[in-house]
């Protein structure tokens, strides 16, 4: 008898909570619908379609799509230009890690040193990051220009005429000119990240070190650097992902040339798709970028977690 009543009560409250649940779901869905719709269509669906298109031989114009399975992938693996492009991406990753991060750290540290005119330094250091990549590209084309260029004018002024050349026109130097430009653009960004992290370090630590008579270098290596570790890892991930998808600057400055010497995965994908009209093959290169970025990011995170576990 008692259980019967209990059952009744339970069913009643279950009904009520089911109704409430249904209403809750409507609210949840209503609030998230616009974001899920845009993200779903332009990111999730689009990535899926990239993998789908990569299975076809298709020019993107007519409706003649021929299913060829994984053949595009076999082709891309044997494609010398693709490997040259991904080699350049790897070079960019190394260069980014070795130039942008240290330079950003030095700039951030300078902003905490007792030099005068701090506002000026901080303002100018940061300005490159606000300029659009296309504007930077065009500006640096002229800076590296064979005739008018700042670099060659400077070399001429200090008597090194023998080193003058068209920096972007030569296969040996083009990639380095581009790397310097990228460093110019992105070092300020890492400066900002490091500066924010240094602000967060407690003053007490430095005061205690001062009492112990620690040198500036000792304070840096003993306090600042270890405490910056998490932000250095974050910066490394950001700079690796950034280097994997560079496009704008190369497209504007060299278009991948001369002779593919500055070709990147993204510029090669663009050329194949929109200049050669191989939508299928372009999608395959796109998919490869996705896969490589995924593996590399996962790799960094795993290594970082392992390091954390070791402590």
């Amino acid at each position, binding site marked *: 008898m008692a259980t019967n009543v209990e059952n009744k009560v339970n069913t009643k409250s279950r009904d009520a909570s089911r109704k409430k649940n249904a209403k*809750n779901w409507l*609210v*949840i869905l209503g*609030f*998230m619908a616009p*974001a*899920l719709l*845009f*993200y779903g*269509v*332009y*990111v999730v669906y*689009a*990535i899926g379609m*990239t993998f789908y*298109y990569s299975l076809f031989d298709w020019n*993107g114009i007519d409706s003649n799509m021929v299913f060829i399975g994984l053949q595009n992938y076999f082709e891309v693996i044997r494609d010398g230009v693709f490997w040259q492009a991904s080699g350049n991406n790897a070079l960019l990753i190394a260069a980014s890690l070795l130039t942008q991060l240290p330079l950003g750290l030095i700039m951030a540290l*300078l902003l905490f040193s007792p*030099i005068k005119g701090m506002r*000026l*330094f*901080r*303002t*100018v*250091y*940061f*300005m490159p990051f606000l*300029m*659009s*990549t*296309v*504007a930077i590209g*065009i*500006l640096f*084309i*002229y800076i590296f220009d064979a005739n*008018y260029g700042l670099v060659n*004018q400077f070399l001429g002024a200090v008597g090194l005429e023998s080193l003058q050349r068209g920096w972007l026109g030569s296969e040996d130097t083009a990639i380095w000119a581009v790397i310097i430009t990228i460093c*110019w653009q992105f070092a*300020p960004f890492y400066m*900002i*990240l490091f*500066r*924010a992290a240094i602000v967060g370090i407690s003053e007490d630590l430095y005061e205690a070190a001062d009492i112990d008579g620690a040198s500036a270098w000792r304070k840096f290596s003993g306090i600042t650097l270890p405490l910056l570790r998490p932000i250095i890892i*974050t910066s490394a991930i950001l700079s690796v*992902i950034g280097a994997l*998808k560079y496009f704008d600057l190369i*497209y*504007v400055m060299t278009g991948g040339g001369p002779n593919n010497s500055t070709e990147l995965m*993204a510029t090669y*994908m*663009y050329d194949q*798709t929109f200049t050669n009209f191989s*939508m299928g093959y372009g*999608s395959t290169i*796109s*998919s490869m970028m*996705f896969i490589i*970025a*995924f593996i590399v990011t996962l790799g960094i995170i795993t290594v970082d977690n392992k390091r954390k576990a070791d402590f």
Partner: protein
Amino acid sequence: MINKLRQTPLYIVAIALLLFTGLPFFVMINTSFKGQAEFSSAPWALPEALSFENYAFLFETSFFQYFGNSLFVTVISVILTIIFSAMASYPLSRMKFKLNRPILLLFMVGMMIPIHTTLIPIFLLTQNMGLYNTLWGLIGPYVAFALPISVVIYTQFMSDLPKELIESAKIDGCGHLQLFWRILFPLLIPATATVAIYNFIHIWNEFIFALVLTNSDEAATLPIGLREFYGEFSINIPGLMAALTLASVPLLLVYFVAQEKIIKGLAAGSVKG
């Protein structure tokens, strides 16, 4: 005295970096005030007299159309991003349901992938929707790419708001919509500033999608326009430099007005990601 001497190397490094970061800007602005003849005879000297002819020249071109297009696309995209991501973060941070974590994770993954992977399908999709070569065609992808970081920032910020606030609003009989727009959204202003600044910079400068999704002056944004300029007037370097200078003005202006906010916004945007 000794202290001052010790600081000399610091100043040398600081000034060297000042030249490295500042010189290209100086060259750009300096050249933009020179006549063409003057430029070819002494390319890197200071201008003999400030000449505004290069800026006047921009009025004869489509420069201001590109500028207006960029402003339109950027402002609408940022507003939509703010509304959509703030709304999405409300159930993600304030209501418990089974898909909380997976959906948040789905957005977080969006920050890690090379967004170029979506280029070809978005190009085809935009054509099929009849939005190819329109400003509206750019807004959709820009909002979608801005969502991951914005949703994460808002969700984090909103879960830090005190619980009591919401409880008491519920007792007062506030519905979800009212609670969100009247009470929570005004409290989110710091997060909104971060989201707005971070996305404004990125959308104002976006290039590859604008390149693929538009093909005429009517729909081209500034980065595309600047490249057109470079193709058309590559001999008129002072004119080109005037265009580059003017294209950078909005962000530099915002930066000088709200320097600390921008710096904080950028740092927060990426670190929390």
